[in-house]
Structures are given as C-alpha cells and as structure tokens.
C-alpha cells in the first residue's frame, strides 16, 4: 500500500510495515527542544514526576530566544530554572543568549536537526524542520517533559495534503509569498491535524532557506507538519553541517492525499497578510495606501542571511522614512556574524535601523519593539493575531523582507519592484 511522506516516516520509525491516518503510534524521537518560555514548565513537571535524568543529553536542545536577554525580573527567574537544569543534565545543545539565537533558525543551521529526523519541540514553529525533510511538530511543555524523560512520544498519523507548485517565480517572490498565498487558499485551519507536502518544480528549485520559511508557517494553516522531501539541494545544504547521519524518505507513487492543489506561481506577486489573520493575504498591487509606524525584519520565518541580504540590497544608501522606525534582528548569532562580515549590519545602521542581538523580541510582543495602541507594523514574522505584537488595537501586516525594506524607506506598504523594475526571477 502506497504511503505519503508523513506516513512513510512514522511507519519506519515506529517499526511498523504501514500506518493509516487516524492511527496512534508511539515513536522514538531523534531530538526534543524547549525554549525559555516552555522549558521551565517542562522542567518543573519532569522533576515533579520524579524523573532524574534526560533520556539522552545529546538529544535535548534547550534554546533561549524569546525573552532574552531577560526583559524583566520574572523572565530572568524563569531562565534560571533552565540554566540550572542544562548544567545539571550536561545538555549538549544548550544555547543561552549570545551563543545561539532563535531555535528554528539555529537547529537546522548548525546541523542539530537533520533530514529524516523525528522531532518534537515545545514551540509551535518546530514544524520549520520539515523544510529539510524531517517530521517535526510543536507540542506543549508536558509533552516535552514526557519525551525528555522517555525519548518517546505519540502521534496520531495525520492525513496528508499535497501542494504542487509550478511556473516561474517572478522577482521578489520567495518562500514567504508561496506560503502566504497557500494559507489564503486553504484558510487558517485548512490543514488542521494534517500533514502538508510541498512539491513540484518550484520547490525543487527553491533555496533551503525558503523551504524552511514555508514549512515554518505550516502551523498558520493549522498543520501538524509541512514537509519538503529531501533532495540533492538538501544534501548539499547538509554537507559540513549535519551533526548526525540523516535518512532520506520519499512519498510512494500512488499514495492517497485528502486534498491536492496545483498552484501556478507565474502570476504571483509579493504577498501581504492583513490584520489579523495570516489568511487575509493579498497581492501587493491590491494593498492600497497603508502607512506603517514600525517595520520589523527578523524572526524564525525571515531572519536568515538571505533575508538580510535582500533587505540590505534595497536599503543600501537609503534612509528609513522619518515617520517609520525599522528594527532588524538577525535570527541567530551566526547570521549576525555573517551579516557583519558582509557589511549588511552597517547598511541597516546607516539607514537608521535599530539592530539587536538575536531574539524573538517583537515577534511575540515580548520586548525590543512592542506596539502601542493603534500602531501599525509590517513584520516579516509569521503571526498577525490581535495583540500579537503588543496592544490589542495595534495592527500587524505580514510580508517578506523585500516588501519590508521597501516599506521602511517609503513609510507605507511598498512594492519592492519600485526599487528595481526588472521582472527577472530572483
């Protein structure tokens, strides 16, 4: 019986010949991850249940990225729980502030997650690693505590949806635009409990960073996992990076999908999601005149080196609009270092941007750029829910880094093609 990518991975790792959607399987995990918001609760539960050692100190990642450097006394106290636990358990992949960055950018970048892995993380954007061909999904703190103790978790085998993208991408159309467009097509719960498989000639051609961006926003459509099958491009990315052997899975021909979409990208423009749902997405030509108080370039969705390069190419030699502020946060320490070496940070600072150490910061309304009443932000992150970045009467628009940079210069949502009228694919 032919199986989808998600079914293949779960069957193989649960030592079953085949699995059906709806079935519950217990599966060993290759890696479990917690952050500074979710791990402290998990650690307390782990200890309260009487567990003493993590199942494998090399397969637990503890990453501080949300409220660090500590935004207030309470968050400082929370991080102490994690710092102590990481020390006591000799956690190998422990990244306090200044050493790592945002978990979902960090773990693929350092080869801590690899293709074919089964990963759970106490953070909803754990699905990002699907871009490498991993089965990775977000859970809460209690599931993390259980998996830290046992090295196992349970999954309900999801139904799969297949998205095939074809055509030639136009200038400034990136993974972010593909996924926003997809969420607009299927809705904010269009993939609820399901696996999304991204495939087709556009995906084969899509740089790894863009694949990770697409998989990252699987959860904004309610999906459990969003997977791009591992291919040569993935394996090239893994060279010199992977810290463990990987496994390559392919969907079987003739596997059953609950829904299939064929998406022609050749007419797709850069996309913008309007407040306050990711599905409220439009092409940039339909945006109209929207002034913006704050632009944020960063997050686990679009805070990678390629995103900063795109933004810097537009901002070079220009100034941020006097009535707009720009915040740029490299997603990881390695992105930060590379951006320094390439002179990108200088471009941002010269343009009048606030640039900071790697943190989630404004993405979740935590710190470093919280919005006040009635303010409007254009953000390269993944969520624009009510109150996500601050006051409940603030508005958040989502877009890719090119739209963000163009918007910062003009002070209103701007089509980046105004800065370079060429229509060739990038």
């Amino acid at each position, binding site marked *: 019986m032919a199986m989808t990518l998600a079914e293949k991975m779960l069957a193989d790792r649960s030592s079953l010949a085949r699995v059906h959607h709806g079935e519950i399987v217990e599966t060993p995990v290759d890696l479990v991850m917690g952050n500074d*918001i979710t791990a402290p609760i998990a650690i307390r539960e782990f200890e309260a249940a009487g*567990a003493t050692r993590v199942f494998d100190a090399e397969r637990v990642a503890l990453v501080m990225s949300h409220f660090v450097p500590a935004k207030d006394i309470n*968050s400082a106290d929370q991080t102490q729980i994690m710092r102590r636990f990481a020390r006591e358990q000799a956690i190998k992949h422990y990244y306090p502030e200044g050493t790592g960055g945002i978990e979902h950018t960090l773990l693929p970048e350092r080869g801590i997650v690899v293709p074919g892995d089964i990963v759970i993380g106490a953070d909803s954007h754990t699905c990002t690693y699907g871009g490498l061909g991993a089965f990775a999904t977000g859970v809460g703190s209690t*599931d993390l505590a259980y998996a830290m103790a046992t090295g196992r978790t349970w999954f309900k085998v999801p139904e799969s949806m297949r998205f095939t993208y074809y055509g030639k991408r136009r200038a400034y159309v990136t993974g972010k635009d593909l996924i926003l467009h997809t969420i607009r097509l299927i809705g904010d*719960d269009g993939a609820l409990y399901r696996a999304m498989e991204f495939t087709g000639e556009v995906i084969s051609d899509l740089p790894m960073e863009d694949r990770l961006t697409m998989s990252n926003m699987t959860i904004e459509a309610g999906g459990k996992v969003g997977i791009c099958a591992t291919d040569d491009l993935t394996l090239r990315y893994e060279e010199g990076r992977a810290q463990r052997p990987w496994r390559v899975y392919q969907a079987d021909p003739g596997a059953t999908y609950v829904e299939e979409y064929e998406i022609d990208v050749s007419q797709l423009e850069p996309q913008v999601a309007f407040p306050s749902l990711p599905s409220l997405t439009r092409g940039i030509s339909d945006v109209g005149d929207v002034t913006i108080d704050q632009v944020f370039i960063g997050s686990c969705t679009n805070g990678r080196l390629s995103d900063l390069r795109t933004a810097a190419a537009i901002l070079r030699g220009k100034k941020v609009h006097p009535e707009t502020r720009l915040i740029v946060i490299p997603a990881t320490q390695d992105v930060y270092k590379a951006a320094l070496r390439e002179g990108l940070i200088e471009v941002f600072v010269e343009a009048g941007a606030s640039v900071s150490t790697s943190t989630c910061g404004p993405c979740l309304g935590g710190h470093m750029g919280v919005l006040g009443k009635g303010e409007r932000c254009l953000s390269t992150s993944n969520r624009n829910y009510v109150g996500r970045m601050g006051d*409940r009467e603030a508005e958040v628009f989502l877009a890719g880094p090119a739209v963000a940079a163009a918007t910062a210069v003009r002070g209103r949502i701007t089509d980046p093609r105004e800065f370079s009228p060429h229509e060739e694919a990038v």
Partner: protein
Amino acid sequence: MARAWKYGDNVDTDVIIPARYLVTGDPVALGKHCLENLDPEFLEKKSQGDVIVGGRNFGCGSSREHAPIAIKGAGVPCVIAESFARIFFRNAINIGLRVYESPAAAKGIQMGDEVEVDEGQAAIFNRTRGERYEIIPLSPFVQEIVASGGLMAKLRKELAEGAAP
C-alpha cells in the same frame, strides 16, 4: 449552573493569554489575564465553573501550555468548540482541562446560555434552549491519558514500573 461565554472561529493563543504574561507558569496568575485581549468583560463577570464555547480552530497559534493553564486558572473547567487546534487540544488533555468537540453545541449555544456537560452520556445540555448536543468521542489512547489524570501521571506510572530511564 454554568453559563456559556461564546466566541467565534480562530480564538488564538495570543488572545487567550498574551505573551507578555508568559513569565510564570502559575495558574492563578495566568488566569487573571485569560481572554483579556478578546473580551475584557469575561474577566469581570465570569463565575467559577462557567464554560467557554468557541467555533472552529479554537486555540490556534502558539504551543504555550499557558493557554489551557490560564483557562483552568480562570475557573473554567471545560471548553466546547466545533474544532480545536492540534497543539492546544493536546496540551489541554495533558494538563487535565476538559475539551469537547461538538459542532452542534458550538452552533446552538449562545452567549450567556446555561449549559451542562454529561460525560457519561457524551452529551451537552443547553438548559436555556432545551437542546441536547452530541460530543465527538476521544480516541481510546487519548481517553486513557485523560483517565489516568494527564500525561505526567502516565509518566509517574512508567517510572515506577521502570519503563523509562
């Protein structure tokens, strides 16, 4: 009798408990801000035991377990919805917040209705409107987690049996 606080589709974790309050895991402290971004009246007027009713995709967004904890901490014993976002659903089961999937109830119940859940009959009764709605049953595996008192109770048992390191 429990009153219903009725909301629409896509009630997300950022309105259930905004990220700025995620600096504690304490249910009472979190409960003080439950739904404040969605309906400030909820916090003023709710009574212990009131229930929350949502539409589709209740609890979408982040994996913060603080969301079901905040609901529990606000004195709400259960949430009824047409459908739940996956991580929220799993978290609720794990920490012992009752969650009932019932499209009929999500449609029939209106703000302020008096409702009663009867788990034995797998039904929700709307006393205001004299209606009865079916609850979609949980899978046996999930029922077992609920019955054993949440996932940590299962872990304790496994540790005692030497099944986990």
